[in-house]
């Protein structure tokens, strides 16, 4: 307590210096919050959008379906599993889907593409990005209807419009080639050219009949969870529960490696940048502390002469640094809070700068820059501030305890 009070007073002996150093810490906090916060927000956004494009955060799927997504691979007791999965803590939703490749033909043209067969009773704009992106027509409402929802580019290529028919051809569960008619009930535009040109939604029950699946069979159960960060852990625990020789459990990182790669890439460059800026700030703290130790060497000499142990002096200087960090942190919080609040609630709209295609790594990204910090990011920033401060103060503190008292007494 005694040392702390002393450290605190020492800190304010050089107000300007302390203020500048504290400002640099505050600046670091500000930056870190902005960058980490926007990364946290954007990644979560991308991962969640990706999850709503078919596979969820976690999928329970037929073994090797991920590698070669053919329709002979299927799981049997989809609805039982769905019920089980929905009861798990942290699970927001579990949705049964059939996903496969198909050819879509109109009288004019044939287009290769993919479909997701869904139960319209279970999927809606909130959990399915394609439904959210519908800009013409309405979602089919019956799971055994002849409706189909296709991307706008596909509609354009096939020359079909709402209500028009198309024929899709695929291979059923035994690898037999099957064809089925469908009528366009809605058209979506996600903004992802590739997706808009090749993706279709089909009604689940009818697709089951087409593929000669049993009533409870499907390609996969797509699980969305409340907190995407738990994907890997939950995928592992679900895997322990449900994985068999026939089915496996994968997280989004395995089913969407492009997205995972993009995020990892961006995250690491973000970390390295922040680390280097942190090092710079630490160098500033180091500089300040060392100067402050050097100019007080006489004082430290006296303290040691009257019996203060070197390690106590070491602690004193460390505590000074921590106080400095605390001041910087408080200042940082003060300047960051309004900014964070603004970015969190309003955000900065970059849609003008981004063109029409708001996509990256195959998923949509939000053109409005917002921030959101996970608690562990907050902890990380706090740890970084105090960690770097301590790191920067170690040498000056050691130095303070090493000054030979008699030498310091000599320097007037």
């Amino acid at each position, binding site marked *: 307590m005694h040392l702390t009070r002393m450290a605190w007073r020492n800190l304010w002996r050089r107000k300007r210096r302390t203020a500048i150093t504290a400002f640099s810490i505050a600046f670091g906090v500000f930056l870190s919050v902005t960058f980490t916060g926007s990364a946290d927000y954007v990644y979560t956004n991308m991962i969640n959008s990706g999850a709503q494009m078919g596979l969820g955060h976690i999928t329970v799927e037929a073994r090797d379906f991920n590698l070669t997504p053919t329709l002979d691979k299927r799981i049997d007791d989809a609805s039982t599993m769905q019920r089980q999965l929905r009861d798990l803590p942290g699970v927001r939703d579990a949705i049964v889907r059939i996903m496969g490749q198909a050819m879509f033909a109109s009288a004019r043209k044939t287009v290769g593409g993919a479909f997701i067969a869904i139960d319209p009773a279970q999927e809606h704009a909130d959990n399915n990005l394609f439904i959210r992106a519908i800009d013409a027509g309405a979602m089919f409402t019956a799971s055994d209807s002849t409706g189909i929802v296709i991307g706008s580019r596909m509609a354009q290529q096939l020359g079909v419009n709402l209500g028009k028919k198309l024929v899709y051809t695929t291979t059923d569960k035994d690898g037999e080639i099957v064809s089925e008619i469908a009528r366009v009930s809605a058209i979506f535009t996600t903004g992802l050219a590739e997706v808009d040109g090749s993706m279709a939604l089909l009604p689940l029950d009818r697709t089951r009949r087409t593929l000669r699946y049993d009533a409870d069979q499907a390609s996969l159960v797509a699980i969305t969870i409340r907190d995407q960060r738990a994907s890997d852990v939950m995928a592992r625990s679900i895997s322990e529960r449900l994985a068999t020789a026939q089915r496996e459990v994968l997280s989004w990182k395995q089913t969407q490696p*492009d997205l*995972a790669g993009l995020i990892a*890439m961006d995250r*690491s460059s973000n970390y390295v940048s922040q680390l280097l800026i942190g090092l*710079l700030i630490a*160098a500033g703290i180091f*500089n300040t502390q060392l100067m402050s130790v050097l100019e007080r060497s006489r004082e430290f000499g006296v303290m040691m002469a009257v019996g203060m142990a070197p390690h106590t002096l070491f602690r004193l200087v460390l505590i000074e640094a921590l106080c400095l960090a605390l001041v910087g942190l408080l200042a940082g919080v003060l300047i960051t809070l309004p900014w964070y609040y603004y970015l969190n609630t309003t955000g900065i709209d970059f849609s003008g700068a981004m063109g029409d295609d708001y996509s990256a790594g*195959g998923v949509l990204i939000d053109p409005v820059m917002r921030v959101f910090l996970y608690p562990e990011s907050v902890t990380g920033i706090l740890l970084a501030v105090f960690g770097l401060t301590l790191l920067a103060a170690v040498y000056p503190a050691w130095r303070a305890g090493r000054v030979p008292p008699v030498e310091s007494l000599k320097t007037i």
Partner: protein
Amino acid sequence: MHIFSLATRNVLRNWHRSAVTTGAMAFAAAIMILFAALMDGLLRDSERTAVAMNLGDAQIHRHGYLADPDLYSLLDDAAALAGNLRSHGFHAAMRLYGFGLAAAGTASAGVQLRGVDMDNEASVTLLHRHVLQGDWLAADDPHGIVIGRKLARTLAVTLGDEIVFVGQASDGSMANDLYRVRGILKSVGEDVDRAAVFITIPAFRDLMALPQGAHEIAVMRSDRNSDLDAARERVAALAPQYEVRDWRQLRPVVARLLDMADIQTIVMVVITYVAVATIILNAMLMSVFERIQEFGVMKAVGVTPWNIVALIYLETMVQTAVAAGAGGLLGYAAANYFTDHGIDLSHMASGFSFGGIAIDPVWRAYITPQSLLVPITFLFLIAAAAVVYPALKAALIRPVSAIHYR
């Protein structure tokens, strides 16, 4: 001369404090250099990888081929055009593409057959160095093919296994032949990984009954630092009847991601400089204000304010010069280390590709003259700016106040 030696002596006399100040500046300079080199490296590598595995700097196609990659949409004089490009200092390789079915055992998959110009492809892309297992194509092994990694798993084939290709040849006949897996590629991107079958151009021509022409010419600048737009214009001038696009036009999403990374880099560099400015400002403030009594004494004995300003500036510049030298060396050494060793990011994700382009998971620095000169210039500017206030303060303070300054 007199004031210069005084400045030098002052710096040396207070060598402890000078060392701390100079050290802080040197460290800041080193960090700026390392940061600039790392960011340059990231951008350059992303761009290079974007270009290196497949795209090349620019591609030449027949008009309409990109929208509808038809077997007949040929560059009829491809060989002559590629030769002409090479004589104009470009690297150029012809490519042929065909679609069909590859089958091995009971497994089959739709594939894209890619005819490779064995003499020139290696000067345009690095695919030949990206082989996971086995070997790259060889001109004397027309039945040896190289396939994507996921395709190999889909077809359940390993090196030496046979693959049948079936497709439609240009004369309408059924193109089919038996090949042997000579190599399996490392991950390049989803489309290549899942569907690509590489084959030599003679074998492709033979199989697809396509004796002339090519679908694509991939062009690479011989100087990677020259301007991309200008290079594309030159290529376009040499191939006026065809569509010439640079890789940014071919992969706008990737180009935009890189642009965004570029902006992010600039922002980060600016931020780094602000942080550096703070350090230097603080260091300068400390080193001048700590000696303010001394300056007071100097004024008391008749030194003019301008002399003091000049002295402080000289001292600062002496220190900054030393810092620039030391920081430059340190930064160069660090950047150089990361140029050779790189930061391995592969543990952070299983694959590293986006927009269909594989990214090298090792992040390397890249040192350009700018990445050295800009930070050092900035160091001098910041030091000069940071010392304005303390120098003026020291020059203008009344001797009596200076002696009692705390």
